[in-house]
């Protein structure tokens, strides 16, 4: 076997490994979007590696990662969960604060203000409510400051590709987190006669909170297995 052949083989293997990485991140992102309650079919979520390679390996096109982008609409169940219940003071509450989500993988080897601004502009130009940006590298601190600056128009979340290689919520030590709707939340607080600040807390930057896209003030129900009680539910307020 000549050295050229060896080189080609090595290159092919490297390409294969890279494709496998992207496929795993792609699946995790889909699972994440589906778990949040957006509409995705099971075929889209449970795509096999071969189908994935076939889908993204059009010759002549740019690499796999440039084509990796998709959008999803919130399902009816999700709209109900995010809706604001009418109260006596406010009989016509504002519509739920969710909308179409846009997910994009970014191939750049460094992500700065320019790339972030372009992403934010793309989101607001196409009326996407939320955007998820998945990068290879950490985003510069200056670029992260853009997120609160454009928060009025669009909601941006950032993930690093290596964090998405495995779905953390599938790990046996991560209990199930269920987001409560506003009605359930008020019922809970009334049942236990609590103010919301008296609940245990979960941070906004908690990996599971980021996975579920929690917002400040939302309550999650955490269901653990318990050796003594069978199942044990606790509630946490996102801060």
């Amino acid at each position, binding site marked *: 076997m000549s050295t050229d052949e060896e080189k080609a083989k090595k290159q092919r293997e490297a390409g294969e490994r890279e494709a496998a990485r992207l496929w795993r991140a792609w699946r995790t992102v889909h699972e994440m979007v589906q778990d949040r309650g957006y509409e995705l079919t099971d075929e889209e979520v449970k795509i096999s590696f071969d189908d994935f390679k076939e889908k993204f390996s059009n010759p002549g096109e740019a690499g796999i990662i440039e084509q990796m982008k998709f959008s999803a609409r919130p399902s009816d169940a999700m709209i109900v969960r995010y809706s604001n219940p009418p109260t006596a003071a406010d009989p016509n509450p504002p519509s739920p604060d969710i909308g179409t989500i846009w997910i994009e993988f970014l191939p750049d080897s*460094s992500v*700065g*203000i*320019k790339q972030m601004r372009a992403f934010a502009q793309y989101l607001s130009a196409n009326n996407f409510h939320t955007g998820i940006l998945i990068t290879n590298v950490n985003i510069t*601190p*200056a670029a992260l*400051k853009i997120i609160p*600056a454009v928060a009025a128009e669009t909601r941006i979340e950032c993930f690093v590709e290596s964090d998405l290689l495995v779905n953390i919520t599938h790990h046996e030590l991560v209990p199930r987190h269920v987001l409560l709707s506003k009605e359930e939340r008020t019922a809970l607080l009334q049942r236990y006669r609590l103010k919301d600040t008296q609940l245990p807390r979960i941070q906004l930057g908690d990996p599971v909170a980021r996975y579920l896209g929690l917002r400040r003030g939302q309550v999650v129900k955490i269901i653990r297995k318990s050796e003594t009680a069978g199942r044990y539910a606790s509630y946490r307020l996102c801060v």
Partner: protein
Amino acid sequence: MATAKQPKSILKKATYPATTSSKEDRDREVALYHANLIQQRKDIELNILLSTETLIDYPLAKAPYDASNPSLADATEFKRLLRPFQPSDYDELIHERNINEKCGYTLCPNPRVKDGIGGKYRIIGTNGKAKDFKVVEKEELEKWCSEVCAKRALYVRVQLSESPAWEREAAGSTVNIDLLDEPKPVDGAIVEGLGKMSLDGGTGGKQQDVANLALERGDTGMAAKNGLVDVKVQEKEVHRPAQAPSLDDLSGRLDTMHLTLEGHTPEFGSRRERRHAEELEDDDGPDTDWRM
């Protein structure tokens, strides 16, 4: 004989004469004061972000100008935008420019150098003296287009204030930044400079005066600006007919008149010392208390 009078606590007064507003009002004031502080800080941070975004695309002026001879407009704008920056913000600006493949020095139009060779570190100063020898990260070297530009950029960096803009005092907001290579004066620049001189005399000078006055009075902190410390200047009015000085009431002080400075006669030594000296003169001879 029991009286109806309540025993009075000596520990604390029932009411403080100073409190006129209720507790809620005071609480609201304090909350508002701190909210304003935070808002101000957020505004400044947003400002820095926008400035960084603007400065990524600098210089705006084209060919005849370069880093050693920047255009006047670019240089003045650069200096103006850089005022609220801290060194760390400036580092971020350099990083952002590098991401866009530009030299880290804002007024330099060249791309940054990139040697395609791998490796994380570089050895420099191998053919100089031993003290020049250094091992540095590759990224450090790839920030600039040349060594001169690195010098220029770092010359600006050391002039930036370490304290964040929202904590700086009144004088800090008008701090001036010098460039290593100031824009070369052209005929047009002189005219522009002349125009600015008169402008400074008008509005800018007045603002500077007010800032200086505030500094002199000591109202530099946020408290004075937001009125937490209520300072009222009360003039003392004097209604008396003016009297010309006459020699009669001066006669007692005529021998010390030559010492008088603007109506004040300085006295040497403190009063207590002088009194002590007089007492000593009254005694007969030196102290003899220590003798048995």
